[in-house]
């Protein structure tokens, strides 16, 4: 009821191949997040699965059925768009009922399903409003409602939270996760925000230039990134990369160390540096430390209350077991 397999699919626009041959299996009931920098092909990949774009070659299998040339409506997938794509001239009720109406359901059944969806999404009081009269979060919920009523094999989300403000985004993130727990339906979620990916996903697919860099659970990606790109993309603040003499000591081309795995001391430590900007978040303090022989400042995550000022000399010591080593091809060394 929601297993999707991609076999060697490719997509080209004219002469430009945006997705080189790609294999991926999404298990039933999984929450899969496609994440990557903008232009990495994650949205294209989602649209290929949805059927809004045709694959150039390869096949898409949904629930064991070949779906490569099946039109989008027949694939049993529902999509929530970045702009929500609500129909502005229809009331919320009609918006949610639209897929049912297109499926030829009778009026009573339509109403029952719309009411049920509205209940789940707290939209009951807004059913007779137009989308233009709703707030961003409510519109988002209507878009999700329109997807739910179809009882699809899988939900596809295309950067659904990027138009919301930060506070609302956190709320909707929780709501979508909650929804996934309730419905236990496969969900594929596209985002460029690694925080969303880490917090929501059962499985993260990291993409770069149409190529899957790594597939795994959030913690797998965090602890054992397959290469430098994944290491740098997952985790916030970003992992620090050091090369040259720093890396040579560990017998690697580059070493990576996460800001939370560095210890700061004002008296002694492995590496010496000067504190630049420090950002106080209350719970944490991020220090940007300039070190000799290191181009970019090293980010350090420290406790909320440190008495370190701009220009102070500090000593940094990495936790030896948390150092990631990468070879010349940027691949992880075991």
């Amino acid at each position, binding site marked *: 009821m929601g297993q999707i397999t991609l076999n060697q699919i490719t997509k080209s626009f004219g002469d430009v191949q945006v997705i080189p041959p790609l294999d991926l299996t999404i298990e039933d009931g999984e929450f899969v997040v496609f994440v990557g920098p903008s232009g990495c092909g994650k949205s294209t990949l989602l649209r290929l699965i949805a059927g*809004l774009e045709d694959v150039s070659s390869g096949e898409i299998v949904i629930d064991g059925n070949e779906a490569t040339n099946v039109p989008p*409506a027949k694939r049993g997938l*529902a*999509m929530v768009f970045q*702009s929500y794509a609500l*129909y502005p*001239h229809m009331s919320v009720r009609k918006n949610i009922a639209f897929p049912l109406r297109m499926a030829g359901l009778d009026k009573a059944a339509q109403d029952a399903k719309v009411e049920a969806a509205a209940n789940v999404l707290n939209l009951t009081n807004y059913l007779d409003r137009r989308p*233009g009269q709703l707030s961003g979060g409510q519109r988002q919920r209507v878009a999700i409602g*329109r997807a739910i009523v179809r009882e699809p094999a899988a939900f596809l989300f295309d950067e659904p939270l990027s138009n919301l403000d930060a506070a609302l985004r956190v709320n909707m993130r929780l709501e979508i996760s909650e929804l996934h727990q309730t419905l236990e339906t496969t969900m594929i979620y596209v985002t460029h925000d690694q925080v969303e990916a880490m917090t929501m996903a059962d499985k993260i697919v990291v993409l770069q230039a149409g190529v899957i860099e790594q597939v795994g659970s959030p913690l797998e990606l965090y602890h054992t990134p397959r290469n430098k790109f994944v290491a740098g993309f997952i985790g916030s603040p970003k992992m620090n990369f050091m090369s040259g003499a720093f890396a040579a000591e560990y017998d690697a081309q580059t070493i990576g160390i996460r800001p939370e795995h560095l210890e700061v001391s004002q008296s002694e430590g492995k590496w010496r540096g000067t504190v630049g900007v420090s950002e106080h978040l209350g719970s944490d303090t991020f220090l940007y430390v300039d070190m000799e022989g290191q181009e970019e400042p090293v980010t350090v995550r420290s406790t909320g209350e440190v008495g370190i000022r701009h220009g102070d000399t500090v000593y940094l010591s990495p936790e030896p077991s948390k150092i990631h080593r990468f070879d010349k091809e940027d691949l992880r060394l075991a």
Partner: protein
Amino acid sequence: MATQHSRSAARIMMAPAVILLLGWMLVPLTMTLYFSFKKYLPLRGGDLGWIGFDNYVRFVSSSAFWPSVQTTLVIVLGVLLITVVLGVLLALLLDQPMWGQGVVRILVIAPFFVMPTVSALVWKNMFMDPVNGLLAHLWKFFGAQPIEWLSNAPLISIILIVAWQWLPFATLILLTAIQSLDSEQLEAAEMDGAPPLSRFGYIILPHLARAITIVVLIQTIFLLAVFAEIFVTTQGSFGTRTLTYLIFQRVLESQNVGLGSAGGVYAIILANIVAIFLMRIVGKNLDA
């Protein structure tokens, strides 16, 4: 202070234009009103004094009045129907990506640049002429008897000519409206299982509603005043006498300026009723 100064400066600077436009409108309007209460026959005695509402009564009670109103309505509605329906279809076609899109779009606008008199002459002599017209040749090619367009189907002919002129206008406005439709809405409808015709009916057409009302509004106001096309082709014969043409005939052919002016006042009232009525619809549409 600065804003107050610039506001009065703006008023002074706008004044010439406003006064010119106001004069342009007010002088003919007052003259029409003035003559409409007079018996004024330039070739038969000139100004024969005030006669109150006689002209207004005579204009409405003449046997030509109601048929002319009917003709006007038939032409306006016929042209609106053709331009809106074909305009929507053409706009949909032109919205498709194709080779030479820019050139094709300019070609589509072309009829709008042709003067009404010229286009009516071209249609009359090159298309609808029963002997030499292109349409006559076409009919003959298929072995049919050529239609004498302007005498046998005069209203349809005029509607065709006027519709041809206004189709580009409708197409252009509708095309820009279609281009402003969020493509994600169409994709969402596609995912929701709406086949192309339903997508057109449920998404595209409601989106175009506002543009269609605007096209209808603007065209109605101009179509009520269609004149050159009739003057050049049928000269108001064969039941093609519209209200506008009737007024022209009263003033110039019957040389009764007073009677014609009274008709003009009726036309002003009619046009304003249509304008107010349609403005409301558009206003409502703009609010939504």
